[in-house]
């Protein structure tokens, strides 16, 4: 594991996703991940700016990369971590396309020069917080820190659409249907459902421009979680969390449904398992209150409670193939 990461919280974590910020810091401290905030960072441009004006958008993002590059790295490899999926995508996209096109890199650097900055493509390795925890920290270290396993809590692992795709650095073997968050949550003792829409879109900013579209996308996510009897959806992104949480009531009103599924950040769930109080990791700030479902967490693993009765094989049924997990981490 690198001994230090530049930390780029992004705008959401300052305000609506405050819970993500404080739970990230909590978990990072527990796991010994040293985070140092990028000085004077600015907005990543979110999802809209690239569609409106590409070059200024690249320059806007590249400024953050340049600031990260300029931090004191003592000659070591530079690592930048963003907890927000949109920030992560924009940062890695900018790095990727600047490396891909020397022309774009020159233009962007011309813009940066006005502020006395410069970015060399490839100088900073951009991580999402998930891959830092899964690949750099590792499941074993996470498991060691678990003091209150989440036995009995059924969680839906929700990756959203930006983390595993397009996967510029090729760290995900299954970008269409990843398993790394599943495995991480399982390491915390939770019961992880095979969430079929784990990489589907949450609607993003469609809530602002085409609400019907957004509500339908949110409904699909909530319905799949409800169909699998999930107690909570675990998200990696402030946008996903906001849409699923903040618009849940509206979905219910619009479609006549009655979903009450709390949406938690994966760092909050980790914090719970590491023994944090709900307040320490920002639980209670969400619209759909997560505190009632926390009562479902049991002392013992679900199987043990039932006195391990060996399941007899159904005589007629055909055997199921074993599941294959191929996430091997960064190559």
């Amino acid at each position, binding site marked *: 594991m690198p001994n230090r990461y530049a930390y780029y919280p992004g705008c959401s974590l300052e305000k609506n996703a405050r819970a993500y910020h404080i739970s990230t810091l909590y978990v990072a401290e527990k796991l010994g991940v040293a985070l140092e905030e990028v000085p004077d960072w600015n907005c990543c441009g979110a999802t809209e700016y690239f569609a409106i004006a590409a070059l200024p958008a690249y320059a806007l993002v590249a400024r953050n990369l340049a600031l990260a590059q300029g931090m004191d790295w003592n000659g070591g490899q530079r690592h930048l971590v963003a907890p927000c999926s949109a920030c992560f995508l924009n940062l890695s996209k900018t790095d990727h396309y600047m490396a891909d096109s020397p022309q774009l890199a020159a233009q962007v650097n011309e813009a940066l020069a006005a502020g006395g900055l410069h970015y060399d493509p490839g100088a900073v390795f951009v991580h999402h917080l998930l891959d830092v925890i899964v690949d750099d920290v590792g499941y074993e270290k996470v498991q060691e820190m678990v003091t209150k396993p989440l036995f009995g809590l059924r969680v839906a692992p929700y990756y959203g659409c930006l983390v595993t795709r397009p996967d510029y650095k090729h760290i995900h073997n299954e970008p*269409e249907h990843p398993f790394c968050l599943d495995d991480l949550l399982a390491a915390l003792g939770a019961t992880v459902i095979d969430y079929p829409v784990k990489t589907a879109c949450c609607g993003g900013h469609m809530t602002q421009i085409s609400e019907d579209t957004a509500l339908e996308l949110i409904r699909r996510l909530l319905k799949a979680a409800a169909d699998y009897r999930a107690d909570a959806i675990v998200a990696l992104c402030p946008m996903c969390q906001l849409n699923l949480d903040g618009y849940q009531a509206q979905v219910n009103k619009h479609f006549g449904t009655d979903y009450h599924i709390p949406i938690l950040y994966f760092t909050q769930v980790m914090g719970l398992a590491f023994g944090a109080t709900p307040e320490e990791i920002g639980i209670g700030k969400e619209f759909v209150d997560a505190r009632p479902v926390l009562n479902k967490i049991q002392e013992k693993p679900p199987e043990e409670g039932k006195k391990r009765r060996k399941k007899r094989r159904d005589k*007629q049924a055909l055997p*199921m193939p074993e*599941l294959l997990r191929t996430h091997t981490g960064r190559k």
Partner: protein
Amino acid sequence: MQHKPQEKPRIGVYICHCGTNIAGTVDVEEVARWAGELEGVVVARDYKFMCSSLGQDLIENDIKEKKLNRIVVAACSPLMHEKTFRGACQKAGLNPYFFEMANIREHDAWATDDKTAATFKAKALVEGAVNRVKFHMPLEPIPVDINPNTLVVGGGIAGITAALELANAGYHVYLVERSPSIGGHMAQLDKTFPTLDCSACILTPKMVDVGQHENITLLAYSEVEAVEGYLGNFTITVRKKARHVNEDLCTGCGICIEKCPRKVIDTEFEAGLGYRKVIYRPFPQAVPKYPVIDTENCTFFQRGKCRACQIFCPTKAIDFDQEDELITFQVGNIIIATGYDLFDARRIPQYGYGRLANVFTSLEFERMVNAAGPTGGRIVLRDGVTEPRSVAIIHCVGSRDKNYHEYCSKICCMYSLKFAHLVRERLPDAEVYNFYIDIRAPGKGYEEFYHRVLHEGAHLIRGRVAEVTDAAREPGEEGKLIVQVEDTLIGKQRRIPVDMVILSAGIEARKDSKEVAQLFKMGCDFDGFFVERHPKLDPVATMTEGVFIAGCAQGPKDIPDTVAQGAAAAARVAGLIHQGTVLMEPVRAYIHEDLCSGCRICNNLCPYNAIVFHEDRQKSEVITALCQGCGTCVAACPSGVISGAHFTNDQIFAQIEGVLWDVRAKATAPS
């Protein structure tokens, strides 16, 4: 040790146009003109096709009329035509090893579009060849006797065919099969496309023939462990794994299987869809008929208790103490027919195999529709009872996909259509959807079969499936598997709810194909398939003399192609056996004994154990018959007294100097 050429060289240089293959990029006239001025060159010509009989005549006449004693042809790779031109030299009375070839096609003309650079490189290669050929020595090919026995590795339909062809021709065959029975993948199939023959019915008679043939030694449940030697004289070591059943005593009655109390999932023959006992025979018609104990799952081997099979065996054939046996024998040729692995569909998790119960692989479905399979031929969902009312068949799973295998697996379209037919036949009310990219039906009766399936009412939807999901959006989708696809013919996204999904998984190379290639010293391509000597003209030979390949080990193919290749490999081997003796390249190492210091460094390095050390006079000697001319000892000798015939230091250094002619010209030019 710089040796002077023995006689005054009179060299003929011939620059081939190869149509426009070379002449399109290389200025051949200029190269010929330039070559004519090189020292020792008597004549230099360019010609449209040097390999034509007219081109060869040109060389022969020049040798006779102009008294040439060295020939250089600048044309294609020596793999193509070295033999041709050596033959021309020989016909004109010149030792064929006074010939040298410069490859200005693959190594030059085809590698660039830059005419100036290509012409420049052609000159360098030609001068290298001219310089080298001056130092060539007359050599005589080495005759090698061919052992008439043949090793066939792999007992699928390719290996079976090859073994039977050779055995019927009167030659002895050792057939080595890794699993407990021969039969391969073909034994697992239900029907074969497009004729819908029962696969087992046409295969098992051949298996019986193999088992009973007096010219075939069948070594099932065995693996080749070591291969030594060369064309005509291979020494093979085979590990015959312990079956824990004494084959001399076993009658194949099957009581042991019946009495065995433990069942495990059969991931091999039944493709994971059914169970087998721990002492088992893969299938009733297995050849040989003897069962085998799966020691990893056997209660006796794991816990020391049970012994049910031993107690009930009427002939006392169960032998828990049996050990692996190493068998060594000699063969002249080897045919590799190790087959393929099915692509592991779990590698595409969005298709749901392993996650969603009613997603099946093609091989599972083959076992399901087989009357001898786990469901007795009934098409049912994973619960073993419910018949599906709609079935989706997804083509190209793992094939034609840059994330997995870029190549087409060739058989999946046809077997997917066969599945569509079988579903419609067994469940006439069921809807069948085939999701395809393109239908590839190139074969006798294949296109006709495709039309037949269309007329039977299968729905063919053109588009690569995005995902198979159980996340229902609409009421009609509840409890179903939904196939999400872009129908590229109507240009729309579609969601098609079905009860059952079959993934038509592609063919991939065996997981250990790289090790197998190393064992037999064959080439292995990036995908793991064995490399043939020539993709068009020599598809069953390999770059290693005496080693042939057949079937899917070489690349994906269907049964008729596999059988044809198995027979072709056998014919090639039979031809060699019939010749009795073949002439091998005299490219061998030899040690100048008077200069050898006896340090013995070469002795241990030789991969063929071809170097002996004479204690009495403290000198090493290369046994010519065993030497393969690899050159390891030549490079390793600290005194530089080992020479590789046809690759002597004089020859190589002269060639290097020639290739670097421009450097020398610059260095000596007045500045």
